[in-house]
């Protein structure tokens, strides 16, 4: 069984400060890891993914994430947050051994960036 945990329901950060959204996972194998963002009344938009190779992955809108196998984490980061980054963020995992490639999503973290 696989699971994803996003330990913070909400993250508050001032504009211009670094932003971190945490994600940890539990899988019985090697994971593929994804981050998505959801703006109000919209569908999910893909930000970035880790498949293999370099542990630091860069994605859209200046976001990056670091895969840490020993800590089973995949935290999302942005060096300088913008008010427009305020949204709901989801971490997702799928297993390399799952031929159907089903995703397991975390519960989501609401990010609030204040001016």
């Amino acid at each position, binding site marked *: 069984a696989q699971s994803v945990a996003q330990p913070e329901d909400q993250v508050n950060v001032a504009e211009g400060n670094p932003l971190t959204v945490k994600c940890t996972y539990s899988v019985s194998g090697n994971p593929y890891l994804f981050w998505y963002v959801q703006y109000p009344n919209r569908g999910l938009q*893909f930000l970035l993914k880790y498949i293999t190779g370099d542990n630091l992955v860069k994605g859209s809108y200046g976001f990056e994430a670091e895969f840490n196998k020993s800590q089973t984490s995949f935290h999302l980061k942005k060096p300088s947050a913008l008010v427009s980054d305020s949204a709901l963020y989801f971490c997702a995992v*799928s*297993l390399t051994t799952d031929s*159907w*490639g*089903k*995703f397991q999503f975390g*519960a989501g973290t609401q990010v609030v960036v204040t001016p």
Partner: protein
Amino acid sequence: NAGVTQTPKFRILKIGQSMTLQCTQDMNHNYMYWYRQDPGMGLKLIYYSVGAGITDKGEVPNGYNVSRSTTEDFPLRLELAAPSQTSVYFCASSERGGSVEQYFGPGTRLTVT
């Protein structure tokens, strides 16, 4: 490309009524998915399909049915609607499973009263 489209955007159903949520994608993706999103619960997989004529249950399939007669379309059927099915429903598609991202539609907000 329009990507993944869903209709309707909003719907209110009475208990016991039935309806079909429509989903269409124009990316020629083989894999399609239906999720429901409830506050604080993330997204739960209802059904998925890996090609026309091939579907399987996800994590929360009870009360729903699907069919996949074409690559483009993946409708979700709700039979005998219940208040527990009040949710936001998202359809998604991907080129294949596992290592590729899924593309999401804008969602259907359903209320059952």
